[in-house]
């Protein structure tokens, strides 16, 4: 505790201005990325780390231009590989605060393998997955999260593909942290990003993001003023799962399924509702919550899963400390002269 406080005292008060880059932001007017950038500029001064210790890593795609728009250390990598690059940055220097910015194509198609393995390893970095359910930069082809039947440039008769749900992928890959938020709710984005940063291990935040050109209104049910409150639920640890414009609906577990119920109807009370426990090791309920889709269910927002497992990078560092203490080989001269040698 003392060290944390001292460290924080060494860090000058930072503001949004400390992270603004001098580069022109080239996303389309109305793109959800602008709002995400703005939230992130609010989040970085609140992290309690030096601005030089933040590294933003991305792959390829509209979202992946992000590092150029933040005045931090950053790498704009190659398509799909941001998770691998981030892993290397964090393992090489665990003191750095690493943020990976990716999209649904970059992360779950070309980078799918790196994504699931990064999640499984639980290296301590934050993945911001902008999900607009379309390929934007290549101008409108379906992605692994595009709903089946969608008409896109490469599915002119409607897509045949069954989409991924990023939450299920994370949970299936032994993920320790998954949260969801949406580009139209800056306050929620800031709160969730801060939660993700607090989590020790790989934190995945799915940000439902609107592509104004190629998948406009793909998240309309959860963003539209008229419908959004009835189609999303903000999950809070220790609280019953209530939602709706009039906060009169809830989620219950009956048998092996979740159901939406009306409070006060058929004798249902708040006490009957599920209480959210993001720290439950058992991923069963978390998986069901991540799967919920509108309009049958409200889309789950907030921290769905956050369990405490020791991050990979801490294990690696502990192992190095232990080996340094016990090994007879202290330097490369020792190594060269170890084992079977002879004199001439």
């Amino acid at each position, binding site marked *: 505790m003392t060290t944390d406080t001292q460290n924080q005292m060494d860090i000058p008060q930072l503001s949004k201005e400390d992270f603004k880059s001098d*580069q022109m932001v080239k996303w389309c007017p109305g793109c959800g990325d602008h709002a995400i950038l703005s939230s992130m500029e609010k989040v970085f001064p609140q992290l309690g780390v*030096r*601005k*030089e*210790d933040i*590294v*933003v*890593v991305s792959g*390829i795609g509209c979202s992946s231009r992000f*590092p*150029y728009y933040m*005045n*931090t*250390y*950053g*790498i*704009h*990598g*190659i398509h799909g*590989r941001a*998770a*691998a*690059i*981030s*892993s*290397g*940055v*964090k*393992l*090489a*220097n665990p*003191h*750095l605060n690493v943020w990976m910015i990716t999209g649904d194509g970059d992360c779950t198609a070309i980078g799918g*393998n*790196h994504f699931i*393995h990064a999640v499984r390893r639980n290296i301590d970095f934050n993945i911001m997955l902008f999900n607009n359910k379309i390929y934007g930069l290549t101008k409108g082809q379906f992605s692994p999260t595009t709903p089946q039947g969608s008409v896109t440039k490469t599915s002119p008769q409607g897509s045949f593909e069954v989409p991924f749900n990023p939450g299920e992928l994370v949970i299936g890959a032994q993920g320790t942290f998954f949260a969801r938020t949406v580009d139209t709710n800056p306050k929620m984005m800031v709160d969730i990003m801060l939660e993700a940063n607090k989590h020790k291990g790989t934190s995945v935040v799915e940000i439902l993001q609107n592509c104004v050109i190629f998948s406009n209104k793909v998240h309309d049910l959860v963003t539209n003023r008229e419908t959004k409150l009835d189609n999303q639920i903000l999950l809070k640890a220790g609280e019953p799962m209530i939602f709706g414009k009039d906060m009169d609906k809830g989620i219950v577990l009956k048998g092996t399924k979740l159901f939406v119920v009306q409070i006060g109807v058929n004798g249902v009370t708040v006490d009957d509702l599920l209480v959210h426990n993001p720290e439950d090791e058992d991923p069963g309920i978390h998986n069901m919550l991540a799967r919920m889709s509108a309009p049958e269910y409200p889309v789950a927002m907030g921290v769905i899963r956050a369990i405490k497992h020791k991050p990979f990078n801490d294990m*690696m560092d502990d*192992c*190095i400390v232990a*080996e*340094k203490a*016990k*090994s007879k*080989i*202290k*330097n*490369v*001269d020792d*190594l*060269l*002269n170890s*084992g*079977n*040698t*002879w*004199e*001439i």
Partner: protein
Amino acid sequence: MGDIKKKNQIVELDEVVLRFAGDSGDGMQLTGSLFSDSAAFAGNDFATFPDYPAEIRAPQGTVAGVSGFQIHFGHTSIHTSGDYADVLVAMNPASLKATLKWAKSNATIIVDTDTFIEKGFLKAGYDTNPLEDGSMNDYNLIKAPISTMTVAAVADLGLDAKVALKSKNMFALGVVLYLFNRETEKTNEFFEEKFKSKPVIVEANKRVLKAGYNYAENVEVIGQVYNVQPADLEKGTYRNITGNVATAWGLLAASERSKLEIFLGSYPITPATEILQEIAKHKSLGAKAFQAEDEIAGICSSLGASYAGSLAVTTTSGPGLSLKSEAIGLAVMTELPIVIVNVQRGGPSTGLPTKSEQSDLMQALYGRNGDGPVIIVAAASSVDCFYAAYLSAKLAVEHMTPVILLTDGSLANGSEVFKIPKVASLMDINPPIVKANDPDYLPYRRDSEKLNRFWAIPGTEGLRHRLGGLEKDNPSGNVSHDPINHETMVKLREEKVQRVANYIPEQEIIGEDEGDLLIVSWGGTYGVMLTAVEKLQKEGKKVSLAHFRYISPLPKNTNEIFKNFKKVVVCEINNGQFVNYLRMNFPEFRYEQYNKIQGLPFLVSELEEKFVSILNEL
């Protein structure tokens, strides 16, 4: 033992090639390495090569399951693991079938007669028993009932036959130790150490070794004992080392001298895996080994570590290098240092995973989109892997560029005698790290001599910057699509690599720098080329050798060395890659080429034959 030496004639030999062959489960690699230890103890120079099947346990008793180990040891300098064996130990019919073609026509062949039963020789593909059908008449055949005598030697130890037979390789070793006038003490010490917790196994191995030794002493067939005097090696401490371990240790040494933590991101692939395994052992040296989910993640994690200030390395073999191409391009563009070790094997595609080739040269040079120059270094021998890896790391960090280090399966698995250097005696490594708040720092500002950009490491105050695969403005580092800027940057990246020629030695010629024939080779063939050329030089032939270790850039004097020879022949284990690279760079010369593409190394004898035939055409 004094009696033995009196009883038998001792014949002095300059060099010997000895090969052990048996079933995968017969322990031939251990037998070979124990004999290597005895050669080391006797002060010989030596080189070894293991030859094992791609399958972990191919069907027992078949030719596919034969595992071999060859050692070439001598009183003279030894540069190769040898062409043909003077002495071959064949533990079963399959190993005789598979390896007899690698034995000299008058070789001594030691066989376990107990395994030459009908079932055994039929399984190996013989129609009749080769020990009895006269086909072995030209050889000095020593027919020993090795299995029977092994079981008999340990009869009263209460071991079951299966366990007892496990030490039959030590019977063979005993015979060979006698044959070469070597002591058994060192080997016994090994048993005591290795099987510390199992005294009965120590006893069994000691007895079987002794039984083999005594058998050799008593049989009439061994009329003479051979002696190989110590080699004339420089004073110092020596060890035996394989190319893969040497590569790993060279990188660890570079990490220590550059004061950069080493980060290896890698994915297991034959024949490169041992480098990852070796680095993973040495966490006490601060080494971070990361076994990634694939080849791409191997290099990308390493590139991330490079950005964060580590000595970044990735290791692979041909197919893996293909997968890493795009990320090597990112390293070229971001001008981040990284060493890519490619242990070449037979290709294309999966090819010949356990066999060696030099066929990734063009891939290393040009296997990327865009104009993507990199430094390429090729290790010359198993021991040179240590120095080549060290040098690759030095060039990568000092010139801020990816370096591809080419080794190959022969170097990787083969071993040589290594004179242990002091780490302090190795060249300095000075990474161009930028100090905090340097007011002049710009991501693509360059050193005026080397043209490298500078390394601004995350966490350092006042140097925040972004790198990436998009073309960058010179020198601000902002994204730029400006046409003239792109041309400038492409040329700068090329020039930066070319200028490395100012920091590497000139190409040496072994022999006179003019003559009839200049023999050109590169990478892992050095030992065999040198041996062949030295033999011809001794015969008075006007031949010289130019063996290249630096491929990109080529040494500055390269074009000058070709002028003074009537003919130039480029020899390589591929279909002609270096020769075409030379044709492209120096079209003013005519090059002959000699290629072998059989997954096998050159033989000294075939090289000599080829060179003599070229000389005869002059």
